[in-house]
Structures are given as C-alpha cells and as structure tokens.
C-alpha cells in the first residue's frame, strides 16, 4: 500500500513537473515567441486579421468620400484638395503601411534596427549617401508652395490610419511599430524611386573591367555603341516625318557628335580602378533590367481619331506591387493612375483630357570623383587642402551590437569608401528637386502643351515622357536635369571617373543637400523633344543617334524598341485613320515575340548543322533543332522552343563569359547585355581567348541545355519561366505572403517584359485614349494587407495579359467594395 501511494505521489510529481517544465520550456524557447504570435485567439498576429475598413471618419481637412471599387481602387472625391489628399494618405496608410515603412527604413538606413545585421551593409550605404538629408532639403523647398499643405494633409492621413487600426501582419511578425509619417518621408520615397532608376556606378565598374580585362576583350564586351538603328528618335529619312517637330538632336546627315550617343563609351582611360568599392556599390545600384515601354500614336492612326498612349514600366516585381492605383477628383482635376505609396499624386495616368507615361532614359546623372589625400586625411581641392565634413552616425542593430560609422563629405557630395578605396559622389537626386510639382501639374494638365510645360520642373529622375491629349496632341520630352561636364573648359562625357582634386567634371549650379540653380545643366529647350509625333516608341534604347548633348550610356538593348516600331510601322504604314484601337495596343503591350531569336537562332542552327562535334552526337540534337526550327519565336509559357532558346542563351553566355572573367573580380553584374553577346562575330578577340570557336560554344551550350531540361523535367517555357521570384520582402521567412507561383510568358527582351532572373517586369500596364477609355492592371492587388480581399485579385489576370478598365467614374455604392465617408472634424 505504501508503495502504491509512493508511486502515486511520484506520478503526480512527474505530471506536475511535466506541466511546469512544459510551460517554462516553451516560454524561454523560440516556441514561446511563435505561440505569442500565432496561438489561436491570443496570438498577436491575429490582431492584423481584425483590421476593418471604416465606414465613416473625421477629417481635419474637410469632407471627402472614398469609394473603393471592385478592384480595390479608391475613388477619392472632395471639394478641398487638402481633404482629398488627407483621404489619399489614409488609403495609402491602410493599404500599404508596411511597404511605406520598409522603404522608408531602407532609405534611412534603418533596416537593421528591425531585421538584424543581415541588412547592415545596406544601411551603411544608405547612411553614407544620406538620402534623408536630400529629402529634407526637397521638402523645405516645397513646404511654402501650394503643395506644402497637401503633402502635410497626406502625412496626417497616413498617421490617422496608423492610429485607427491594428498594424498589418508584417509588423506583428517582426514585432515593431512604425514611427509617424512625415512630409519629409514623402520625398524620401521620391529619392528612392529616383535612385532605383538612375543610381548606378557604371563608370566606376567600367574602370574596374577595363583594368582587369585584356584590352581587345574589353573592347569586344564593352563596345562604344550598340550598332542598331532604332533609337527613340528615328530621324532618318524614312521616319523623320513621323516625329513631328524635333528638338535637341542633330538632323539626319548633320554632323553630330557620335560620342554623345554612345552606349558604352569610355573615352577616359582610367587605371584608377576601385574594385572592392565597385563590388560593394553594385549591390545598391538600380536593379538590372529596370526599364519600360511606352509609345504614342496620333489620332491619324486610331479608329476614334484621337491618340492612344501605352506605358508599362518595368520595375521590380514585388508583393505587394510597387504601384498603387488611385483616382482623385477635386475641383482642380479628375485624375486616375498609379503612384508609389508615399507619393500623394498620380505619377502615370490620365485625367479628363490628357494621358502620360514614362520610361527610363538611362541618362548619366551620377559622377564619381577621386581625390588626393594627405596624411591628415584632408583632400586636395584645386589649390588648397580641405577638411572632410564628418559626422558620426550610429546604425541600430536588432539583436546585435550597434555600428557607428563616420559619414564624410567632400565639396561634391558624400564620400563612399571601402577598403581604403574612396570616391566622392554627385547625383542629381541628392539636392532639392521640384519633381513633385511637375507630377502634380501633370495631373492637372489640360493638354499636351501644359504637360510639356510641367516637365520643366521634373528635375529627377531622367525619364522619357510621352503624352497625348483628347484634342489630338502628342509629345515626347526627356525630363530631368542632365549635367554638362568640362575638363579644362572642354565639354566631356560623364562615363568616367573624374579627378575631383583637379576640379574636373564638376556640375555648375549643383549644391548637394541644398538648393541648386542648375545653371550648368542642359537647358530644357536643348533636351530631346518631339512635338506632335505621329508614331513614337520608347523602350530604354538610345534616345537619338546624335543628341545635341551627351545624355548617358546606360541604354537598353534595342530588341523591345525594334519590335514595337516594327509592329507599329507594319500596321500604320500607308494606312488611314481608324487603323488601331485600344485592343490593338493591349495586344502589342503583351506581345511575346523575342527579337533575340532573329539575332541568334539562324546562327545557332547553322552551327549545329556544320559543327563536327554536332555530327558526332547528332541524334541528341536533332529533336532540339526541329523544336527550334518550328518555334514561332514567341516566348509563350507552353512553347518548348522558347524554353530551349531561353536556356540555351543563358548557357551560351556562360560558355562565352565565364572563362573571360576567371581570375578577375568580375562577376555577372559586369556581363554585357544579350545584344553585345549576340553581336560577337566568330573572329572577335573575345573568342580568341577561348580554345573553341563560337560555333562550338553554341553547340556545347545547346548540349548543356538539353541535359538541364531533361534533368529538371521541363517541357514548356513556363516550367522554368514562373512567377515564383516575385516575392514579398519577407517571403522567404513567411512564404504565405507571396503570390501564387504561375507559369509566365515573356522574357527580358520581349515587349511583354518579364525577367525571371531578377523579378523585374511590367509593374503596371496602361493603355489610354485621352478623353476616352483607359485600361490598366497591376501585378498583384491594390491592397498590401495579406488579409484583405484585394491582396492578389489582379495577379492572375496580369500573368495572363488581361486588363481591367480604369474609368473616371465612381461606382455606385451598391457596386463598390467599400465606401468611406470623411466628415469635417467637429471642434465642439
């Protein structure tokens, strides 16, 4: 009996210990944190699931109505603009709060404060660039203008949304709260956009490549210019009349300066390469492949007799999308389109009379300067030794030790340094800019003339802006400030490192982190323009063969531009009005024909046919040859030929480039584009560095492709070309935040642009007939709230090349997704 009792006591003790140990063990382990977040009913994550759009709210800026349509697009209507933009801020704060805060943290260099030391390098770069100071100076310039109160109202709206609702899921997962939104943060977003489009250290990297490659190989891989004939402004005799009135470029046959049009010119033989610094900075440059398509055709070529404009910016594809669609109707205007969350005004869109779109120019608006330093860490500037401006800056690190860096500046701007390598940086985005005014004015523009006038204040980024109006007007303008560099009084291009100590290549009228008067920049009238073009297409290719001023070198390969112009030329040539409609342009915008196949496929098939190596194992290649021969050259998801071609090209690039880069610090980021690789002739010095001929490399690449295809079990192009790279910033840790993976069409060279290797592509598709219909779609959903019904509603349609209408018409409440009424704050 005693034994039984003792056993019983022991049993109870064990059970008690099990319970206590279980609870304590969970509490002190990671499981406890997980239960804190995800236990049913009490988990902090579920607060985010309880977010609900309000029906009515008070606004300190007067009444407004927000009718959210079935696609999640808010239609904001107010009599007072401040009331409207308070509501816009509220919508951005409700739908995209985490995105707002994450981008702000990135640009401020504060990511490590919430995610730990994995982002320390990024934070250090952004802290050294000091983007917030540039945003502050920009806001100081805007504060006293008409837009100041609108931006302030917008920020108040964002903060009201923060205060009124549980935080979105990501905040609960990462366990932090956003700080209040400020007007300066809006301009930090502007800097972020501008950096993503124009922030590159190409000149620095070219100097490194030149230093590490043999000269003939360097010349082969980095030619001065891509030898194609489809610039944006085609001023040849066959096409000049389609451009209307052209400014800023030399007429056909005139003596232009070919250096001004170079795609890769590097006239300065710099041996002062800074490889460690260049490698580090490469991580923070604009994403490879960032570009866009846009075109405009006049009313002479449309069924309705008014112009049609198309635009699809190719930016990073994220969950949620980087664009936010909205409509704002005030007494001043009725405008609908997309903006970046954090920016109050529509950036690409259309109002009652005018539609506009933008693509990246690839202009050179960032220069690097080298210096002579003395033992006291002073730098020589012209005839004197100057102290660096220094400031200690602490980077907070979650779960780790904070890092303190010393920010340094020279007369040119921030000093970036790595392993004793240093360069000063000047970038047009690091000064006060008035772009927000230009964007606002575009939204109010009543016609092309007003829109073009608005772009005078579009200081950054440099963009190809196309615009059309309901009265038949069309135009093309290069926006943004473009510096003019001089050495010893002579104008030079900017694709080089400048001797900052000698005062080379300085930008007159530029003040980093202050107000610039832009006196030494290309005058507005001398930048490339085309007024009233009949047909004009931009796809980031070279702006013109002979521009009056050097613009830049970071132009895209011409495949997309070629395809768009080919289709437009074929359709419009010799025809009369009524040729195209919106559907025609939607089809063109989702066109998947890959012009690289024209460039390379015949050569590949010939190589297989003639190669001895191919004859030795010909059976294994016969199927591939047949597949490629019968392929339509469209990059469609179910095309076996598209799969073979796309993968073959990747393998061919590896066969050609990897041996050349062996033994150097050069990586994929230094690789030339597909056009340059395709243009390499059999006799190129590049192939002399190989033991095999071009044809043999092509055949080897095809063998690799077939092996890979069989090993992976791929059949069609969409087996490899999927949307899985389109992910949420924390999609690796929380995969449910990502959109569903789908097989996709398109490649990096097709008009329907999708780059599976970098998750870049058509971040917004829009086709608009000013004064008439417009269509658009974003790759995802308008809401960034995982629990919201509008989180991913457009994604499948975007993948399938479908569109949704975007009328300037508020849906009836019964058809709306939700209606929010803002009423005047009752002071009593």
């Amino acid at each position, binding site marked *: *009996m*005693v034994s039984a*009792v*003792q056993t*019983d*006591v022991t*049993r*109870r003790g064990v*059970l*008690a210990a*099990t*319970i206590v140990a*279980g*609870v304590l063990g*969970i*509490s002190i382990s990671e499981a*406890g944190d*997980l*239960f*804190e977040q*995800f*236990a*049913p*009913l*009490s*988990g902090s*994550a*579920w607060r985010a*699931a*309880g977010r609900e759009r309000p029906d009515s709210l008070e606004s300190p800026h007067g009444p407004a109505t927000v009718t959210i349509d079935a696609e999640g697009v808010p239609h904001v209507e107010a009599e007072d603009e401040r009331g409207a933009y308070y509501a816009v801020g509220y919508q951005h704060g409700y739908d995209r709060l985490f995105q707002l805060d994450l981008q702000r943290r990135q640009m401020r260099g504060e990511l490590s404060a919430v995610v730990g030391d994995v982002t320390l390098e990024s934070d250090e770069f952004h802290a050294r660039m000091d983007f917030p100071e540039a945003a502050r100076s920009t806001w100081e310039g805007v504060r006293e203008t008409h837009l100041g109160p609108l931006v302030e109202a917008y920020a108040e709206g964002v903060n009201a949304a923060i205060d009124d609702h549980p935080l979105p899921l990501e905040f609960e997962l990462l366990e932090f709260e956003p700080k209040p939104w400020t007007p300066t943060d809006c301009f930090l977003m502007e800097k972020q956009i501008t950096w993503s489009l124009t922030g590159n250290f190409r000149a620095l990297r070219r100097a490194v490549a030149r230093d590490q490659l043999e000269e003939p190989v360097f010349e082969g891989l980095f030619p001065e210019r891509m030898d194609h004939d489809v610039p944006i402004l085609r001023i040849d005799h066959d096409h000049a009349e389609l451009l209307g009135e052209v400014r800023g470029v030399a007429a056909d046959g005139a003596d232009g300066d070919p250096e001004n049009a170079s795609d890769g010119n590097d006239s300065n033989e710099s041996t002062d390469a800074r490889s460690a610094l260049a490698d580090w900075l490469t991580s923070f440059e604009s994403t490879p492949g960032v570009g866009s398509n846009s075109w405009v055709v006049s009313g002479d070529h449309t069924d309705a007799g008014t112009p049609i404009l198309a635009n699809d910016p190719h930016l990073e594809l994220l969950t949620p999308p980087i664009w936010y669609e909205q409509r704002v109707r005030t007494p001043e205007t009725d405008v609908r389109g997309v903006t970046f969350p954090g920016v109050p005004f529509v950036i690409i869109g259309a109002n009652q009379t005018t539609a506009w779109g933008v693509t990246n120019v690839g202009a050179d608006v960032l220069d690097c300067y080298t210096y002579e330093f003395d033992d006291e860490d002073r730098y020589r500037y012209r005839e004197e030794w100057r102290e660096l401006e220094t400031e200690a800056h602490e980077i907070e690190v979650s779960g780790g030790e904070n890092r303190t860096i010393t920010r340094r500046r020279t007369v040119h701007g921030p000093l970036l340094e790595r392993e004793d390598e240093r360069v000063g940086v000047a970038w047009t985005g690091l000064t006060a800019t008035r772009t927000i005014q230009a964007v606002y004015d575009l939204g109010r523009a009543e016609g092309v003339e007003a829109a073009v006038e608005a772009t005078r204040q579009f200081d950054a980024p440099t963009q190809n802006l196309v615009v059309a109006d309901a009265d038949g007007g069309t135009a093309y303008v290069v926006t943004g400030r473009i510096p003019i560099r001089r050495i010893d009084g002579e104008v030079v291009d900017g694709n080089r490192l400048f001797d900052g100590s000698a005062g080379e290549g300085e930008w007159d009228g530029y003040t980093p982190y202050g107000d610039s008067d832009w006196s030494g920049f290309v005058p507005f009238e001398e930048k490339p323009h085309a007024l009233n073009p009949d047909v004009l297409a931009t796809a980031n290719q070279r702006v013109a063969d002979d521009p009056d001023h050097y613009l830049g070198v970071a132009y895209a390969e011409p495949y997309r531009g070629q395809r768009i112009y080919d289709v437009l030329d074929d359709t419009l040539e010799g025809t009369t009005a009524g040729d195209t409609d919106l559907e025609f342009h939607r089809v063109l915008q989702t066109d998947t024909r890959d012009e690289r196949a024209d460039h390379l496929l015949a050569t590949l098939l010939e190589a297989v046919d003639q190669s001895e190596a191919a004859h030795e194992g010909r059976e294994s290649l016969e199927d591939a040859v047949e597949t490629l021969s019968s392929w339509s050259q469209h990059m469609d998801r179910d095309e076996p030929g598209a799969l073979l071609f796309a993968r073959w090209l990747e393998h061919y690039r590896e066969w050609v480039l990897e041996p050349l880069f062996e033994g150097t610090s050069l990586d994929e980021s230094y690789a030339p584009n597909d056009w340059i690789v395709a243009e390499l002739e059999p006799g190129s010095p590049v192939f002399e560095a190989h033991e095999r001929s071009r044809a043999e490399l092509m055949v080897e690449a095809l063998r690799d492709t077939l092996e890979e295809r069989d090993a992976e079990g791929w059949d069609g192009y969409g087996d490899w070309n999927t949307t899985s790279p389109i992910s949420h910033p924390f999609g690796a840790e*929380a*995969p*449910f935040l990502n959109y569903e993976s789908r097989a996709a069409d398109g490649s990096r060279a097709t008009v329907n642009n999708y780059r599976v290797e970098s998750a870049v592509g058509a971040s917004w598709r829009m086709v608009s007939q000013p004064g008439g219909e417009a269509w658009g779609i974003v790759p995802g959903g308008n809401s960034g709230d*995982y*629990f919201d*019904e509008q*989180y991913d509603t457009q994604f499948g349609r975007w993948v399938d090349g479908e569109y949704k209408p975007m009328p300037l018409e508020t849906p009836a409440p019964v058809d709306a997704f939700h209606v929010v009424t803002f009423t005047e704050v009752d002071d009593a």
Partner: protein
Amino acid sequence: MPEDDGGSASTGSGTQDGDGVTEPRTQDGSEATESGTQTENGVTDGGTAGDGAGTDEVEQLPVEPTLARVRTTRRLQAVGFAVAITVGLAASTLHWVGLVFGGMVVGLVARTLPRALVAAAGFGLFVLGAFAFSLGGSIQPVVEMAPVTYLLIASAFGLPMLGALARGIV
C-alpha cells in the same frame, strides 16, 4: 464537453473503466456511489479520509468535495465543463498560457486523466471554432498560412492537453 459518466463509473467495480485505466478504489474498498459521497480518489464527502491510517492519509491529496461531486454528477459535470470552457476561452484570449489553463480547468472536471486529455482536445477544437468565428472574412487567408496553420492547430490541441495533465495530480 460533458462526458457520460452514467452508471458505469459510479456503479462499476472500480477496478477498470472504459479507458482501460484502473480506477482508484475508496479507502475502505467500497464503491463510489452516484450520490457522490465518495470520490474516485477515495476521499469521502465531508472531507474525512475514510478509515485509512497514518501515511496513506497524509500522502493522499485532498480533493475538494465539490469538485468530486462535479466529476461524478452528470448535470453538475455539464455545468462544470461549461464554466471551465468559458473561463478557459477567456484566458485563451489573453495569452497562450491561457490555453494551458483552459485545458487544465476542463480536465479537472473530467473523471479520469485520459478523459481529461480527450476533454482538453475537445476544448482545443472549441477554441479553434471560436478563433475561426473571430476571423470572419479572414479565415481563408489564415488557412493558407502554412506553416503557421500547423502551429496554430498544434497549439490549439497541444497546450490544453498539457494543462489537462493536472487531472492526474488533483
């Protein structure tokens, strides 16, 4: 969640119940009666510990007579479960330890440890139902939140069952 203690438990031999677990006999070897005057732990109603002597009496944990009556009376047990679920549910909205607590109080009403574990699992199911109800329109995204959903389900069942082990103590 009330379990059917029916007559089998109260009138059975006390050697083994339907769960295959040996039921403790009363101190004097008599069977518990339906009136609940004596509990399965052998403590007689009124707080006196049978006629056992010395060590045995000291080592037996006292069980409140009311609790004993609740466990063995169908109606009272039903009420006990209802109260326990309500209290447990309330605690579960505060912290995940509330799920352990919920399982504990639900388990304490059960007549045996195995039944306590089953009752705790039932409580977990009830919690999941309440959770699903609280989500409203967000239930589908939550279902798609793998692997979070696995954790969600594991915690809904596992934590209450951990707490229900207390039934083996009291």
